[in-house]
């Protein structure tokens, strides 16, 4: 009876402890992927969760395990992951047509500004010349910033292109890797190899479109570069025509591109960081602490230099020159 009472007393904490342990095990002891199949399954879950980079790594690990049963489906999903990763890179970015439209608009505007500037020079109207100068300068700045944006976009397209080309090859490889004896497994995994071929074709179309857009952007870059040169020429021409007192602000040295960033004189007036003012060592030390530190720094006090047997003998009388 006593035993039963004791057991009853401890039963609830015991059950609670066991329950907590079981929950903790479930939460933390998720087995890491080991086999090719594990890597494939984890990769598929990550792909479904739109974690494309992680999924790509998992599928690559599955492929590296060299299990033939998993290779074909892993390649198929790897193609999906890479294609989707490429799409993700393009997400929320301005389209190529956006850049080209903006570029062509700027080119149109700069051409009309060029015409205005030339007519102002012909007329010899200073006010118009100043107006045209400012307008051309502003447009040149816009052209430059748009060129930079297009450059960045082309670099991004290069990254996307690399991903998509790899994805296309993955689909092709998946198709190539489908031996007849694996057909049953692949059917169970609901992978149709005509799908792989079809996907490869679709990616090829996307690649072609991307290349076409990149080509258009490069053409636009060239046109904008030429326009920028024309603007530069007219700006220097205008600068020669406008008398110095009437010159707009910044006209004296604006032939070159106004590089973004800090100019040397802009550092004037800035203060050094408070932490570097030389007060770091103002740490209060007690005499005992200072003594300990000094003891620590002493040079092996117990050791002495070796003594020769000529100790105490006066130094030799040197007749040489005293340096």
């Amino acid at each position: 009876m006593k035993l039963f009472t004791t057991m009853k007393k401890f039963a609830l904490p015991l059950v609670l402890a066991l329950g907590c342990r079981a929950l903790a095990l479930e939460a933390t002891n998720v087995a890491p992927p080991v086999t090719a199949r594990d890597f494939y399954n984890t990769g598929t879950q990550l792909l479904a969760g739109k974690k494309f980079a992680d999924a790509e790594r998992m599928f690559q690990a599955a492929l590296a395990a060299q299990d033939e049963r998993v290779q074909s489906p892993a390649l198929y999903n790897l193609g999906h992951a890479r294609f989707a990763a490429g799409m993700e890179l393009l997400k929320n970015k301005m389209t190529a047509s956006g850049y080209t439209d903006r570029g062509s608009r700027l080119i149109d505007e700069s051409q009309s500004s060029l015409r205005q500037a030339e007519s102002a020079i012909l007329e010899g109207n200073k006010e118009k010349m100043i107006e045209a100068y400012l307008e051309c300068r502003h447009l040149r700045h816009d052209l430059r910033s748009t060129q930079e944006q297009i450059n960045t976009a082309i670099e991004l397209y290069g990254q996307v292109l690399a991903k998509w080309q790899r994805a296309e090859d993955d689909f092709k490889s998946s198709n190539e890797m489908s031996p007849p004896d694996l057909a049953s497994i692949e059917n169970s995994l609901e992978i149709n190899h005509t799908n792989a071929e079809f996907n490869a074709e679709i990616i090829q179309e996307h690649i072609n479109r991307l290349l076409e857009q990149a080509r258009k952007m490069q053409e636009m870059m060239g046109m904008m570069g030429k326009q920028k040169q024309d603007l530069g020429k007219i700006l220097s021409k205008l600068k020669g025509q406008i008398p110095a007192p009437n010159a707009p602000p910044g006209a004296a040295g604006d032939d070159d591109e106004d590089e973004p960033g800090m100019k040397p004189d802009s550092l004037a007036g800035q203060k050094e960081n408070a932490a570097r003012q030389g007060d770091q060592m103002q740490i209060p030390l007690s005499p005992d602490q200072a003594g300990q530190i000094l003891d620590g720094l002493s040079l092996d006090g117990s050791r002495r230099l070796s003594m020769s047997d000529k100790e105490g003998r006066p130094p030799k009388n040197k007749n040489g020159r005293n340096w």
Partner: protein
Amino acid sequence: MSDLRFAICGLRFCPWLRHSLVLAEFFLAVNILNAATNDFFARGIDLSRAGQFPEAAAAFENAAQRQPAAGTLVNLGLAEWQRGRAGAAIVAWEQARWIDPFEPRAAANLKFARQVAQVDEPPLKWFEQESTWLPPNAWVWLAGASLWLAVGALVLPGIFRRRKAGWQQTLAALAFMVFLASLTANVGVVSRTQIGFVLKKNAPLRLTPTRAGEIISTLTAGEPARQLRARGNFLFIRTTGESGWIESEDFRRLTDD
């Protein structure tokens, strides 16, 4: 040859004459083969002297296929080296050393070629190292002879109803030791058959056995590797640093034709 074969077919009722003629045909065929091999070899030498190395390599290869010999393979390696195919040259010289481990020219050429091409020797395990001391066939003969010697030294005195002498027992023990040593060497020979060399310069090593497979790295011509398996037109190889798939035409094993 065809006349002789016709005569053999006609002699149905004279078995001993028929057997003699079959033997004669065999020796004749061997002679013809030897003559053809010698022709290819001599042609290869002439072409090498004339500086026509691709043709010379083809002639030596024909000669080596008909009758593998260390000298032919050394010459084949030289012709390949002159053609600028370091991988094929290294394979030829390694094959020459496989047939005759005491071939000094092959060893010297290999050392030089590896220094120039910046490739390593294939890493060998201890039993593989042991197997390089003698030609592969010699190990088989040695294993057989030592086993029979050990068995003979132990059993024959009993059969002839004689007392086993001490020297007989020592001989049996020694022969058995040689047998055991040759067994490991034979295992080494079998294991070494998986070793091969990359033939093409910058041969791609792929993650999957497909033409569009992801390239893990590129291999240098003459780089050693072990072939682990094959799938279609691809071989799965393990180099010193990594494993992957290579196209079968870019890789040749020591024991390949």
